[in-house]
């Protein structure tokens, strides 16, 4: 659980006491400080800024509700003033703080300004009864908010961009639309995420990238076939490749879990095809997935080639794609056989890898995968004697492996 030690004050004190007691040297203490970024302020030490941001978000939601009332009885000037007045106040306060060198105050005020800027856009939609501002209003909101976010490069502004992009791209996706603007506007969001990544940003970037790719895919293929599955796995392989570009900014544990989660999703698909499913026809050639896998391979070879989970994610995706691409009616047996071999090979690799690297999670997951495969095949088997032998041998193997691990690494 490496991640919980990040910026941890208690660990900081412990390390100091270890140095004093001579348990570790100052150099070792320094290495630990760097590894867990203990010289950085933990997030809760910045609570004043966070609480102010939450307060501003509440104020903004209040303004949205105020505008949602639709003050139809007032004329255009009064209704416009309802939105413009707080916008100008936010700008004014922002510049005041900026020139007083109160950076956090300025960042907060311009954050409020960027929200109220968007509220003004939707206020226009109301005043002029414009339906097209859903989703176009979000696009304009993003265009206006991006320069300010690039100026401050803070989590707050970055988070606003992510939410806006999500709101916009989700609407495009729901309406089956695609906009070239989405690619252009996503680039600064990715840049800011790269500059200042955190877990929430990572989550939103993945979701937004996925939705962006989906809108593009459905734009090109309005009625997709099964090859869509490979588009999904291709994006997983690509995000695995991209992960390596900033893995030094996160705890190793967290990055490893992300790689594993991508791999597990691909393994799930392989597992589904370990059943003797009727496959009437293979999937069609899908050049978008091909390009995504190609980019993933290039980026991965550059940065992820030492990470076995990346190789498995990409390899299993390509293998499954080729298997289903070459399949034709009546010749489906080899898909079933190949997927069983692939799944078993991966389980065996997990066990061997775990023993070599003393990584018990992989040891246990490899065994669970083998058991899963055995149970799955049990449902296929009609011969009770063979099934019973497989299960008895499986049980003995599991006991043997468990004892082996305990003897080699834990008991000793």
């Amino acid at each position: 659980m490496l991640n919980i030690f990040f910026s941890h004050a208690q660990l900081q004190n412990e390390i100091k006491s270890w140095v004093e007691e001579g348990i570790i040297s100052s150099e070792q203490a320094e290495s630990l400080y760097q590894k867990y970024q203990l010289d950085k302020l933990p997030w809760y030490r910045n609570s004043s800024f966070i609480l102010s941001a939450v307060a501003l978000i509440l104020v903004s939601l209040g303004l949205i509700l105020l505008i949602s009332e639709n003050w139809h009885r007032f004329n255009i000037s009064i209704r416009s003033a309802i939105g413009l007045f707080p916008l100008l106040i936010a700008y004014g306060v922002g510049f005041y703080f900026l020139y007083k060198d109160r950076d956090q105050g300025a960042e907060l005020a311009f954050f409020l300004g960027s929200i109220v800027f968007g509220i003004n856009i939707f206020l226009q939609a109301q005043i002029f009864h414009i339906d097209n501002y859903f989703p176009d209003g979000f696009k304009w909101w993003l265009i206006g908010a991006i320069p300010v976010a690039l100026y401050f490069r803070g989590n707050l502004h970055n988070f606003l961009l992510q939410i806006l992009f999500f709101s916009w791209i989700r609407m495009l996706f729901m309406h089956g639309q695609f906009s070239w603007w989405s690619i252009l506007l996503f680039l600064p969001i990715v840049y800011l995420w790269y500059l200042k990544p955190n877990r929430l940003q990572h989550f939103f970037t993945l979701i937004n990238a996925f939705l962006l790719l989906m809108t593009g895919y459905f734009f090109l293929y309005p009625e997709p076939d099964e090859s869509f599955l490979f588009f999904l796995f291709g994006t997983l392989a690509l995000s695995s490749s991209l992960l390596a570009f900033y893995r030094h900014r996160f705890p190793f544990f967290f990055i490893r879990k992300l790689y594993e989660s991508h791999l597990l999703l691909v393994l799930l698909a392989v597992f589904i095809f370990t059943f003797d499913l009727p496959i009437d026809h293979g999937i069609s050639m899908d050049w978008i997935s091909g390009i995504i896998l190609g980019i993933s391979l290039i980026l991965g070879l550059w940065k992820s080639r030492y990470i076995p989970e990346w190789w498995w994610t990409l390899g299993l995706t390509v293998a499954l794609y080729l298997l289903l691409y070459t399949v034709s009616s009546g010749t489906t047996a080899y898909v079933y056989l190949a997927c069983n071999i692939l799944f078993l090979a991966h389980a065996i690799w997990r066990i061997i890898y775990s023993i070599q690297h003393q990584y018990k999670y992989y040891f246990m997951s490899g065994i669970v995968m083998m058991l899963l495969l055995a149970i799955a095949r049990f449902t296929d088997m009609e011969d009770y004697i063979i099934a019973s032998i497989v299960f008895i041998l499986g049980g003995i193997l599991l006991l043997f492996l468990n004892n082996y691990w305990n003897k080699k690494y834990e008991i000793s």
Partner: protein
Amino acid sequence: MKYPKALLFPMILFQLGILAFMVFNAMRPLQTGVPITFKTQPVDPRDLMRGNYVRLGYPFSEIKLHEIEHNLQEVKAFKEGDVGYLWLQPDGIYHKSYKLSKAQPNEKDFPFLKVYITDILSEYSNIIRLKAGIESYYTDKENALALETMRRDEEITINVEVMLAPHGVARIKELQVVK
């Protein structure tokens, strides 16, 4: 701060510029357009961002292709979100759909509406759904509910007067309740 403070001024002016540009675009059809009238059927939805508003349905929102002129190949090539042009013809006090085309018409005899395809033609249906950006009428809660109630009264007709700009963009001018 990593950048000079003065750099923030053009960024804020850019935001204000966007707002001004949007207001200009929103007002242009109201000032340069010609008035035309559509019959409508309002329903009363609500959501957080839009607040109280009535959703307006028009005769052109859902078009049976055999009722208008069109080029089938062109119409079949439409994708959701594509822009099309709906030619209009006077029909009493209203305007009715006359032709759907992908290219912007040149003829000055027919007013035309810039529309977005929301539902494309399927193999089994000859209906195409369109949106012209005038499907929402924002109002206060009481008015929205009153309009919704009036819709059920057969003796009441609800019309929308829109201003149609020469480039086909329409803007709602007013909602008219006729007994």
